[in-house]
């Protein structure tokens, strides 16, 4: 779908993309990075709207530097910012945008009706868009990107500004763009967690550099682990710590999870369950120590935790810079621990 080769984009004061090389296959791909990581810049280059300083890219086999117009005919784009005139109805607007993509008038009308229905906009599509909710506006923005039936859509932060319900709906819709419509998707987000349910692949960039690119399954496939929570007793005033050292002595790999601030955090241990015997070992050790077992459950890694684990062990080859920010994000949003906001790392500077 997309091949990016040593792509560099320098603005007078910042390097937005730094020798980025990554390939993007059909399906839903998440492009994740903190604000200022270079996500929007990459999209503009892929649309042939901004020249690369060095390197290059092809989209659908077309060169971004020379064949921008042909790319834009086959690709849809949803910007991160508002882009809807308030005094026009969604129908009129999307029809007009379909014609701008080259669709004859009658086809533009038919496809507009279809597309608006597919994104979940019904009677309200005849009303001026000024009165729409954020969720409805995002749907219209998505519709105008889909109306000409592109092969690929580039969605820049489509969940921005939505409440949790709206976000889930948008993510489900994005998933359907691929599964039901057969259109490949590149979707950006600064929320690492929200993409794991939606994307087949995830590309993480930071400061314009590639941190990691792999399938979502690879991100979450690492060793299953066991979450164990125990009570304290008089003999062991810090039951959690006692269990941790006992299990470590028994040869198990144990971590206290980095989700500080999450409910029950300090009392939770993550035990790598390499085989079935780990369950028995944990049970026996708890009984031996005379602790009360509050819970013991199987736990699948989330993408964000993979990053934290990588930081702690320093083994996974990811950039440690991402992890502390991810932890901070989790603490700030205990309600949805999966949505770890990546804060800007360095003063990237907002250049006008």
């Amino acid at each position: 779908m997309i091949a990016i080769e040593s792509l560099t984009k320098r603005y007078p004061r910042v390097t937005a993309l730094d020798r980025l090389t990554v390939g993007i296959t059909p399906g839903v791909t998440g492009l994740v990075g903190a604000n200022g990581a270079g996500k929007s810049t990459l999209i503009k280059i892929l649309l042939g709207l901004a020249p690369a300083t060095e390197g290059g890219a092809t989209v659908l086999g077309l060169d971004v530097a020379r064949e921008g117009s042909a790319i834009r005919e086959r690709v849809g784009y949803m910007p991160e910012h508002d882009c809807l005139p308030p005094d026009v109805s969604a129908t009129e607007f999307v029809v007009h945008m379909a014609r701008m993509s080259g669709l004859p008038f009658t086809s533009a009308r038919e496809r507009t009706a279809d597309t608006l229905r597919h994104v979940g906009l019904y009677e309200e599509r005849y009303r001026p868009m000024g009165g729409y909710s954020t969720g409805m506006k995002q749907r219209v923005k998505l519709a105008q990107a889909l109306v000409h039936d592109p092969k690929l859509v580039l969605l820049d932060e489509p969940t921005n500004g939505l409440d949790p319900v709206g976000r889930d709906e948008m993510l489900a819709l994005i998933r359907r763009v691929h599964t039901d419509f057969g259109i490949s998707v590149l979707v950006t987000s600064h929320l690492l967690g929200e993409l794991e349910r939606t994307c087949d692949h995830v590309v993480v960039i930071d400061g314009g550099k590639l941190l990691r690119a792999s399938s979502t399954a690879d991100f979450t496939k690492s060793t299953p682990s066991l979450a164990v929570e125990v009570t304290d007793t008089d003999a062991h005033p810090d039951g959690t710590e006692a269990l941790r050292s006992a299990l470590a002595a028994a040869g198990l790999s144990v971590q206290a999870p980095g989700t500080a601030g999450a409910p029950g955090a300090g009392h939770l241990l993550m035990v790598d369950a390499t085989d079935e015997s780990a369950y028995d070992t944990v049970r026996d050790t708890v009984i031996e120590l005379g602790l009360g077992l509050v819970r013991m459950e199987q736990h699948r890694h989330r993408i964000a935790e993979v990053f934290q684990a990588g930081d702690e062990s320093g083994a996974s080859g990811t950039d440690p810079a991402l992890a502390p920010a991810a932890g901070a994000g989790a603490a700030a949003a205990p309600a949805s621990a999966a949505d770890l906001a990546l804060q800007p790392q360095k003063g990237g500077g907002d250049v006008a």
Partner: protein
Amino acid sequence: MSPEPHATTPVATPGKPPGQRGEDVIHNIGYRNYDGPRLGRGYARTSLFEQSLRGAYGLGRSAKSKVLPMLLFAVMCVPAAIVVAVTVFTKAKEMPVHYNEYVILMQPVIGVYIAAMAPQAVSLDLRFRVVPLYFSRPIERGDYVGAKYAALSAAIFVFTATSVLILYVGALLAKLDFGDETKGFALGLVCCLVFSVLHGGIALTVAAATPRRGFGVAAIIAVLTIPYMLVSALQGIVASQDNTSAIGWLGLASPGSLVDGLQSKLLGGDNAFPRGEDLTAAQTSAYALLTVVLIAGTYALLLRRYRKAGL
């Protein structure tokens, strides 16, 4: 919450069963792919031109947006109709107002129309950031600017040429000399064309520089009327000192007097300058050159204005 295994998903299957959530039931008319024609840049450009031209008369917009352009259009045409009625009834030997003269005379009305319509042609797209959506499509910067420029100029042309047409029809009804009137009418249309392209460019450039619609309206009125009034006043002063050549040179300083001088020399009309004297050869070249420079210059400025807008 765990991701379902979506390995490689097949391409859209028409008539796919409804999704998991209840409200998705209506979606079950499956997605249809489009394999009809994609008409490309030229078509997109024409569509944009057409939409913008219609928009300049409030067509395809809310009823409220039709009021002002239609009202001004009526104000522009009614005096022409009155002139015709008078000519026909009094059986006059010639029209009381010449074609070009009528356009120059009606400048205040045309100015208000331009000031109202130029901002809505470009400022809305800038202010609500619709421009990136255009540039994410096959069209290029030049297509967008060209279509908007042509559309506003065409709108002004329709606005002015219609009254010229009314005058011509009236002249024929009054059985004035067919040859003379047809020639005057043709030159009148050329005058409208020059006027429209020049004013369209100036107004769009000002409008694109002021994304706030209200400011745009005020700025365009200012640019079109203040220099014209100054020029007229100064011309009056130098005329009273018998400095006839200065009158001509001063006329260069406003778009209205520029068109006026040009048409009086080249398009067979009389100008509204104090002495009504024709331009000298040097002045004529300066007028023509400045007009061309202004038209090309405003287009170039507009292109420049949109250099960053797509990003």
